[in-house]
């Protein structure tokens, strides 16, 4: 359902057509990277470190090379030797170790053979001599005095420090007078929160096929969130120029941020070059969990102060985000996500750590869910202590346009208040809490980004259209592109074919990340359509020998002097005689991404004998700006909510004392299944983003931010126990209930 009046109404935007790529996906025809096979193709396997931290003394592949079917072996010595200050250094070292294995599962060599079984057997026969080094596995170990250095190439970002360190970055910002803020407060609450690493959990494991020709050029078929980034990262890891590499996007089976970096492609290219045959490289699920993606584990202390009137006077927080084996920006984005309330006095210390665990990757609103767990729990306690409605307390302190974000810049036009009101007015919030259950609410914010996009719109001879972009479609964005083009051109959406083109067939386009595809690539599509319409008007003027100034574009047709009408098929049919093919291209670096807010409410029942939490009802409201295809906006809200529910209740990386992940499979890394959940009621709020022609904000990420505190607050209401560590799994919750301690 959609609430709030969007001031504009459209013919196509806001409708729910069947997605263009849908038929292939319900008939099994859609081709994901692992579904592709090339003539003469070899299969590859990776050799991974069994140690969390070790010096690689030597690698002897002679036995492997002599095995049946083996055609190529590569190690770190085959890759470009990048300087540690190179922006792709960590990515390159992560996909193939150089001198040191930095975590259990770090790739140290790769083998290509005729069959997958031969490749696996040969990988097991590669002899690696390791000298184990002391490993650092947790935030506490990383920041302990005298701790061993987890990665000697790490220098603390933003510090100018030349010495190796376990701190990836130290970010400090704030405003006002923190002490005065606490002095003005009548209530002060302080808690420490901990969360475990979790995985994005895309169902499709990483996969690619690479074919390196005799001319030294490579074609890569990849499943990624950005095939131009696959090209640039592969080029960097190999020391190649980008024009030697063409990347063809396969369908992508989920990413959630985890496929914004790469793990396989340069390895497959080098194996293909050595063997002079195409090479296919596919990870197992165990490899995916051990060596890709996790979102950072955290340790966060937060202290909040408010007056008895409910005015929040100050917030102070120290947040540690563990990046795993390399530096990264997780701490920075975590701190930036603290932007939902008017905080006259604010002090944030956000510190990234480096440990000998898998290199972390972006996960949907990276680092915001962990920060929201802390802040939204404290706000809930404030409401409880003050005896006020938790939504009213948030409305009293909610940011509006012009209020400061965490870093001090003013918020643009935002819809936080409208989103809070959508939940306050919802049927769910106005229904009684079921007997024995508890109700929780919480909010989330994500800033969203713009970045670079390109689009080409081609009108075909019969008046149908092709919309060509470079944004991999991870949740229905092709349908959104077609809807915006339909609205601009006045052409039925089923007469438009949206495609995602390879790196040689469309202009450069940044990764599908930051909820940017429908926003930024959509703007490029709109701009190309508008240029095309000017050309169509010119052609109509030529055909009718009229002054182009007297031609208007109305509902898919050129209208000349208010009467004569020429439709798109009529104009395209005459294209040859009026100037040639009708095509337009636009590219941009999109500014004005619109922040998106979400507010969730949940009713839960907790079994006090088992500690199991059952979600009885769940409602999620989110400001979409304008929903181009409401079904896929709802899908983003629902999918984000359930990932957050999994994070809250069950998911966690469990390491043994040697840094080995003990639950590297879907049986033990327990993601939500259908029987764990109720329906997720999605409420779309529309406060249009003035910086986008249709008001799009971007909706991909914010939905994962509120669920953790929403459920923690609901559990507190149901049991009286404040959980401050994740996951709130049955044994932990049971221990907290029976022991009276925090989980």
């Amino acid at each position, binding site marked *: 359902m959609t609430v709030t009046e969007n001031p504009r109404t459209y013919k196509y935007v806001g409708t*729910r057509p*069947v*997605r263009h*790529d*849908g*038929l292939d*996906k*319900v*008939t*099994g*025809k*859609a*081709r*994901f990277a*692992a*579904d592709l*096979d090339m003539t003469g193709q070899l299969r590859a396997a990776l050799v991974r470190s069994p140690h969390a931290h070790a010096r690689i003394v030597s690698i002897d592949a002679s036995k492997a090379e002599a095995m*049946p079917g083996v055609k190529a072996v590569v190690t770190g010595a085959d890759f470009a030797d990048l300087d540690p200050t190179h922006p792709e250094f960590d990515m390159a070292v992560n996909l193939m170790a150089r001198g040191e294995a930095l975590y259990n599962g770090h790739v140290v060599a790769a083998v290509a053979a005729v069959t997958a*079984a031969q490749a696996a057997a040969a990988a097991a026969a590669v002899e690696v001599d390791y000298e184990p080094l002391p490993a650092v596995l947790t935030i506490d170990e990383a920041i302990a005095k005298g701790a061993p250095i987890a990665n000697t190439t790490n220098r603390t970002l933003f510090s100018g420090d030349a010495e190796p360190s376990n701190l990836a970055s130290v970010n400090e910002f704030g405003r006002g007078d923190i002490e005065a803020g606490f002095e003005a407060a009548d209530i002060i609450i302080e808690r420490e929160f901990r969360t475990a690493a979790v995985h*994005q*959990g*895309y*169902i*499709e*494991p990483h996969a690619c096929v690479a074919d390196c020709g005799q001319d030294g050029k490579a074609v890569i078929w990849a499943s990624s969130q950005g095939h131009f980034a696959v090209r640039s990262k592969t080029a960097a890891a190999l020391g190649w120029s980008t024009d030697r590499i063409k990347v063809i996007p396969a*369908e*992508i*089976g*989920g*990413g*959630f941020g985890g496929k914004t970096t790469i793990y396989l492609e340069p390895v497959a290219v080098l194996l293909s070059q050595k063997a002079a045959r195409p090479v296919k490289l596919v990870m*197992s*699920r165990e490899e995916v969990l051990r060596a890709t993606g996790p979102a950072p584990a955290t340790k966060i202390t937060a202290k909040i102060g408010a007056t008895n009137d409910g005015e929040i006077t100050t917030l102070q927080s120290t947040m540690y985000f563990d990046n795993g084996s390399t530096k990264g920006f997780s701490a920075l984005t975590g701190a930036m996500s603290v932007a939902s309330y008017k905080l006259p006095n604010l002090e944030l210390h956000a510190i990234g750590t480096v440990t000998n665990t898998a290199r972390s990757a972006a996960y949907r609103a990276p680092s915001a869910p962990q920060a929201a767990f802390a802040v939204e729990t404290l706000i809930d306690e404030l409401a409880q202590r003050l005896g006020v409605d938790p939504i009213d307390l948030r409305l009293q302190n909610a940011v509006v346009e012009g209020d400061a974000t965490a870093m001090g810049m003013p918020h643009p036009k935002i819809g936080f208040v409208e989103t809070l009101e959508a939940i306050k007015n919802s049927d769910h919030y106005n229904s009684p809490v079921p007997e024995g259950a508890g109700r929780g609410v919480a909010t989330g914010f994500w800033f969203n980004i713009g970045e670079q996009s390109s689009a080409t719109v081609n009108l075909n001879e019969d008046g149908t259209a092709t919309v060509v972009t470079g944004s991999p479609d*991870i*949740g*229905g964005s092709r349908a959104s592109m077609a809807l915006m083009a339909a609205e601009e051109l006045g052409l039925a959406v089923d007469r438009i074919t949206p495609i995602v083109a390879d790196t040689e067939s469309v202009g450069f386009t940044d990764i599908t990340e930051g909820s940017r595809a429908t926003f930024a690539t959509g703007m490029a599509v709109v701009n190309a359509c508008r240029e095309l319409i000017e050309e169509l008007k010119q052609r109509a003027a030529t055909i009718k020998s009229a002054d182009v100034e007297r031609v208007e574009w109305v509902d898919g047709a050129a209208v000349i002097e208010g009467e004569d009408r020429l439709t798109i098929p009529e104009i395209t049919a005459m294209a040859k005689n009026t100037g040639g093919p009708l095509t337009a291209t636009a590219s941009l670096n999109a500014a004005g991404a619109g922040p998106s807010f979400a507010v969730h409410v949940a009713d839960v029942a907790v079994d006090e004998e088992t500690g199991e939490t059952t979600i009885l009802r769940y409602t999620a409201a989110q400001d979409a700006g304008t929903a181009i*295809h409401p*079904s*896929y906006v*709802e*899908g983003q809200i*629902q*999918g*984000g*909510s*359930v*990932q957050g529910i999994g994070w809250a209740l069950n998911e966690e990386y469990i390491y043994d004392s040697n840094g080995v992940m003990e639950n590297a*499979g*879907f*049986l033990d890394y327990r*993601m*939500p*299944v*259908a*029987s764990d*959940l109720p*329906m*997720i009621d*999605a409420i779309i709020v529309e406060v249009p983003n003035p910086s986008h022609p249709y008001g799009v904000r971007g909706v991909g990420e914010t939905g994962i931010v509120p669920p953790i505190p929403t459920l923690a607050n609901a559990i507190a209401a149901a049991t009286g126990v404040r959980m401050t560590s994740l996951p709130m799994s049955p044994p932990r919750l049971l221990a907290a209930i029976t022991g009276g301690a925090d989980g």
Partner: protein
Amino acid sequence: MPRTHALRTQVQCTVNGDEVDFLCADETSLLNALRDELGLTGVKEGCGTGDCGACTILVDGKVNCACLMFAPEAEGSSILTVEGIAQGDELHPLQQTFLEGAALQCGVCTPGFLVAAKALLDENSDPTETEIRYALAGNLCRCTGYDKIIRAVQEAAVQLNGASK
């Protein structure tokens, strides 16, 4: 020249109504045989351990994870994959309601869900929401939060019941 590896086993079975045969090593999974020998790449591998359901197929009408069967075990059986659900160019009602209800995002889990949901509706033409949720509990979807999948199965059941009355 002496043989350096064991000859492969020949397997004969029915797949999506067609009689087929293929060669495989004894330890080949049915999943790999379907994908690599028969080109049925609609059957997906998400885990290889029977936990995600992306490779769900029907073997003699029963739901199975293709990754948990050895290919030679398929000898003589009748297999249905996502590629065999539609009747010619007429989609199964589940395929249609998944499309119309936006019950897929990335689409990699969709084949397994469709097969598992078809097995449910073949046995129980009017399942409750809870019955649907438990019947699909062996299939992981990370994109949708399951909401629209459950609704698409409910809608398909309504359509199938309407057609049979």
